[in-house]
């Protein structure tokens, strides 16, 4: 019986994930990943309650439960990265970094070392292993129809292979491994957050929720009487979710007031308390009084200046092309041509032409795409397959 370690956050998605895998006959262990948390005056990070809920569900299911303490790694790989990126004037995405560095690297490695054959999470995405040489996580098996049939037997193990991957820390082997595909619930699809995961890592990953919609997941959790069935979805990441990114950052960077300048007239319109807090395309929080809304179209981190405009047709808000670096492909790099891209989580997939310029990827959307800030990720799709993506230079 393959041993699956399920990342259980105490939410309904990962609870049902564990329940479904157990019904399918896997030997399931629930794991709560303790990430970095910070005590904020007057705020209570709900991680202790979430941990208790995860454990409650594990007890309900009669499965093993463990706590993996990733606090230090999370702090270094995710929190520090996020603060550094903001200091550089960019807008990073900590969830993407968390998936790349923590959930599908550190958690995977730790789980395999601990004796797991596979890991699973409650992400809304699908893994297709049909083209890969791994027999373990075949996709038809990973996507149950919600049936409770107990005579289903998990596929045989390619155990030599799992042991070998367990020891590797570098998942950059080229060639087609496992494919990441859009979730059936296009509204919940989370592939945007998963594009920096390696194809080799995906061979060891199950996403049992990929073929369900969120309402179905809630219903199935309710049918099974899972403790977390009616629990509200968490908002953002724990350490900033409650207070907002601005308050979080102000504890790490000095607030230095600077000018807000009208890009077209060059006139100083007002003061801000640090260019770091502004993101290209941002509309709110400028406190410039009435009239037409202002949008941030640029900033100069050295001069600590923020440039704004009321002109919604401003060039910097609508870029005819997007340049990506730190490009990551889940499998092999695609050839130049037409693909679909997504510029933020839940944004529509839009057509774009992909070409290369050395290490960089140049994307030309068919129609100009609304401002994408430096540091944000653009994810590239071929049909329903998520190929990878890069970070806006």
């Amino acid at each position, binding site marked *: 019986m393959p041993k699956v370690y399920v990342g259980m956050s105490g939410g309904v998605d990962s609870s049902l994930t564990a329940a479904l895998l157990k019904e399918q006959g896997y030997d399931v262990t629930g794991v*709560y990943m303790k990430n970095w948390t910070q005590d904020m005056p007057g705020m209570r990070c709900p*991680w*202790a309650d979430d*941990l*208790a809920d995860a*454990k*409650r569900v*594990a*007890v*309900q299911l*009669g499965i093993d*439960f463990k*706590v993996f*303490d990733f606090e230090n790694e999370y702090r270094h790989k995710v929190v520090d990265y996020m603060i550094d990126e903001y200091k550089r004037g960019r807008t990073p995405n900590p969830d993407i970094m968390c998936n790349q560095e923590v959930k599908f690297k550190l958690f995977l490695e730790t789980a395999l070392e601990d004796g797991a054959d596979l890991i699973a999470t409650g992400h809304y995405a699908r893994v297709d292993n049909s083209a890969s040489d791994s027999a373990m996580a075949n996709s038809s098996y990973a996507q149950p129809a919600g049936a409770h049939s107990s005579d289903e037997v998990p596929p045989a193990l390619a155990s030599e292979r799992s042991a070998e991957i367990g020891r590797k820390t570098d998942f950059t082997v080229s060639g087609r491994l496992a494919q990441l595909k859009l979730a059936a619930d296009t509204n919940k699809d989370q592939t945007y957050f998963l594009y920096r995961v390696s194809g080799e890592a995906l061979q060891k990953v199950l996403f049992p929720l990929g073929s369900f919609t969120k309402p179905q997941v809630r219903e199935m959790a309710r049918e099974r009487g899972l403790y977390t069935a009616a629990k509200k979805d968490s908002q953002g990441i724990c350490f900033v979710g409650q207070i907002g990114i601005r308050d979080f950052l102000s504890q790490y960077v000095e607030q230095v007031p600077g000018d807000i300048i009208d890009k077209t007239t060059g006139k100083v319109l007002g003061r801000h308390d640090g260019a770091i807090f502004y993101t290209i395309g941002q509309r709110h929080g400028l406190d410039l009084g009435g009239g037409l809304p202002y949008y941030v179209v640029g900033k100069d981190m050295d001069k600590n200046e923020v440039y704004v405009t009321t002109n919604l047709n401003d060039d910097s808000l609508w870029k005819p092309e997007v340049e990506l670096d730190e490009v990551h492909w889940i499998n092999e790099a695609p050839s130049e041509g037409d693909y679909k891209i997504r510029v933020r989580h839940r944004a529509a997939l839009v057509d774009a032409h992909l070409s290369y310029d050395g290490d960089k990827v140049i994307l030309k959307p068919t129609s100009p795409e609304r401002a994408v800030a430096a540091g944000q990720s653009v994810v590239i799709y071929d049909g329903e397959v998520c190929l990878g993506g890069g970070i806006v230079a």
Partner: protein
Amino acid sequence: MKRDFIYLDHAAATPLDERVAKAMAPYYTDRFFNPSSPYAPSIEVRRDYEAAKASLAHSIGARPDELVMTAGATESINLAFGGISGHVVTAEIEHHAVLRASEKHDHTLVKSDEHGLVSAEAVKLAIRPDTQLVSIALANNELGTVQPLREIAEVVRNERRARLDRGNRTLIYLHCDASQGVGQLDVNVARLGVDMLTLNAAKIYGPKQVGLLWAASDVRLTPQIVGGGQERNLRSGTENVAGVIGFAKALELATEHRKYESDRLAQLRDQLEKTLVEAFPQAVLSGHPRHRLAGHLHISFPGVDAERIVFALENRDVLVATGSACAANQGTRSHVLTAIGLAPEVADGSLRLTLGHLNDEVSIAQAGEIIIEEIKREMERVKR
């Protein structure tokens, strides 16, 4: 009231007695007046409030003007410690409220024996010439062990006498946190021989956030909450009239039924203990075999994760407390269990079962069966 769960955590909270609720209700609505206002209805409310305090004082054998009403035991403890400038003696196994308050002073923590008993001899050895306060709980909240307060009071009295002889004018007081056990033990201040006593309404089927500190008339207290000068200037803030009326009713009922109720609970507890120990001969009982609160059962199942049992029992509508750590505070086991020398794998398998009004023979028998089932299930799972 019909309840669909079996509640075995009376040491954590008790439901408001319906008679208490009834006594309190008018003071939230019809008799809402501020007892400090000058008109007749207010004066009536003040009279009722004072009568309630008199009743509380009567229940513990004290004078009404020696009581300070507070918002619970933690506040009472803070008030008791607030006027102290010198050394403090307390026990390692005390409640966090006492431990945290002690940390503000030069203090010595007395060790207990393996049953959680703090001996008068150990307290005596810890007292220094500059010790101003000794604070020992009447009963330990985790183990239920009842402390030899009278003997400890004797030690403090002897110290006081010896200081007089030596010409040492440092005052020494004995404070007792009796929040745990007031429904089952005698809390007469003269018989206990204490100088200060903390009580809490919430543990005796009274309202939460209502407590009192009794201090003998020669004890000088320092107010921790200042303002309008209520409670003889020792605790400002408009009086919690309904709360104090409820507290008085609750203590009255507890005192009246104490003998009957503690016998009843001891029988139920012994039955539950017997059932569990027969099913699991390897189970470890903690707390003093004889000097223990009637409704208190602290039992450990070595190698079992008690928090899993709590969740499994919750699923079966049986509500219990873990005796020690939970996953959220990994590595920080109960300071009490560590202090009495319980091995980590025993401490981690500890349940605290505390019985009270909501339990009867039928529900305890049911609870016993369910607990056995769930622990067996968990032991099976771990074995696999």
